[in-house]
């Protein structure tokens, strides 16, 4: 019962993200865009490259969708509305999201094409940059909550949300989440101008529809994870809890989609240099500061 509700909400969220993304990139707000483009994709011919690595080519989009949905199973939208309340929920989100990398590698290597391959391996370079920047802020959040349960993490933000308690961690997690979902300006794998579509280039028809669906689900899962970890989940003054969750997730999604219009695409070397030389020391400083705050404030 909870599973169907959450999956329906996920589908609704994916629809919203698609409408928002089309609105932000083209300026026109049309509610029918996702449905029409989805039907068009399903109706198109599925072109298969000449000598693909068959297993990888087929499995990659499905794995992308699966990993995003698995990560969404431990996110609480309301007290009691969670698919599985795993005792190691905060770590499980990260474990499920790593399979996005495996899916992108398969999608890059599978079609036996140059642009796709470059896009796939570039995503590995991006992962080396953002992987620590996701785990370390989560560690700081878990330190405050003293538990890995996602519901406990939300409850621990009762007086003061984590965005005010650990602002440095929030900034780093936000940037790393954008890099994980390969949103602009971190969209190296599917660089639209540079790599002719990169990883998405060789997919068409049903597989492209599943790939894009997986990507949209990933965006909304990451937005929900940000809300749970840093923005206090369902907490808020006078609206019901589910309304607060929805509003916050929507706000974070819009911010993630809009932030890409501010900067040009960051190159591989720059991303690695900034994340390892500046990001990781800041993340460690964040853990240190949160440790002091947790011990000092009763």
């Amino acid at each position, binding site marked *: 019962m909870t599973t169907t509700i959450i999956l329906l909400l996920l589908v609704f969220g994916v629809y919203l993200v698609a409408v928002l993304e089309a609105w932000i990139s083209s300026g026109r707000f049309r509610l029918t865009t996702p449905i029409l483009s989805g039907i068009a994709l399903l109706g198109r011919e599925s072109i298969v490259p000449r000598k693909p690595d068959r297993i990888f080519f087929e499995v990659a989009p499905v794995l992308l969708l699966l990993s995003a949905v698995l990560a969404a199973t431990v996110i609480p939208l309301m007290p009691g509305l969670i698919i599985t309340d*795993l*005792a190691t929920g905060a770590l*499980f989100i990260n474990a499920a999201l*790593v399979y996005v990398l*495996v899916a992108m590698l398969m999608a890059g290597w599978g079609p036996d094409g140059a642009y796709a391959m470059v896009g796939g391996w570039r995503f590995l370079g991006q992962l080396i940059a953002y992987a620590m920047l996701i785990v370390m802020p989560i560690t700081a959040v878990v330190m405050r909550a003293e538990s*890995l349960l996602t519901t406990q993490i939300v409850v621990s933000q009762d007086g003061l949300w984590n965005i005010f308690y650990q602002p440095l961690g929030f900034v780093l997690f936000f940037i790393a989440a954008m890099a994980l979902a390969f949103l602009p300006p971190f969209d190296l794998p599917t660089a639209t101008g540079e790599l002719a579509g990169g990883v998405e280039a060789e997919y068409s028809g049903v597989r492209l529809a599943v790939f894009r669906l997986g990507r949209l689900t990933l965006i909304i899962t990451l937005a929900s994870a940000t809300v749970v970890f840093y923005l206090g989940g369902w907490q808020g003054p006078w609206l019901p809890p589910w309304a607060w969750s929805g509003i916050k997730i929507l706000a974070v999604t819009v911010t993630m989609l809009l932030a890409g219009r501010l900067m040009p695409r960051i190159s591989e070397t720059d991303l690695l240099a900034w994340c390892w030389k500046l990001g990781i020391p800041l993340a460690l400083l964040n853990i240190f500061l949160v440790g002091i705050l947790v011990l000092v404030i009763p």
Partner: protein
Amino acid sequence: MTAQMFFIAFFGLAAVWFGIAVFRTYSMVRSALALLFSQTALGAMFLSMQAEFLGVLQIMMMATEMSIMAIFMVMFMMDPGGLSTMDMIHQKRLSLLAGIVSFLAAVGVAVFVDWGPVEMIAPDPAQQTIALGLELLGRSMLIFETAGITILTSMIAAISVAIQPVKQNTVPTITGSNHHEH
């Protein structure tokens, strides 16, 4: 045949099958990703044995590590796509014999030793995590600190071994030109 027994057997079989597939396939990237799925099946096996933290950690770490192994294979090996079916194996019969002998020895030890009373109830996952944390920073603090310093040392060692030496410029002469001084 309880559900737990079924899941352990299923994931164990999957892990061994993917492990054998690592060495039977000609494509190098398939080999690396087969190892990745073998380790994931092991992580799922840990989860079904109710070692939740270890299972999640195994799944998370091994995906990253094996992907890095995949890119190293593409960098260093001759035929990463596997389209030419060349068999790069030496001392085949010896290694097959060694593998089978070690498997039989380990199974023999597992079957014929009396392991003592078996407890079927495991503690709650949240309790396990708390107990593991307390153990880590309590009794096993020295082990963990040593592991931390070992990781740091090995990171610095690996980087210093792998880094490309900076090309020394030739000594500039008084006239300011970079002629090679013999």
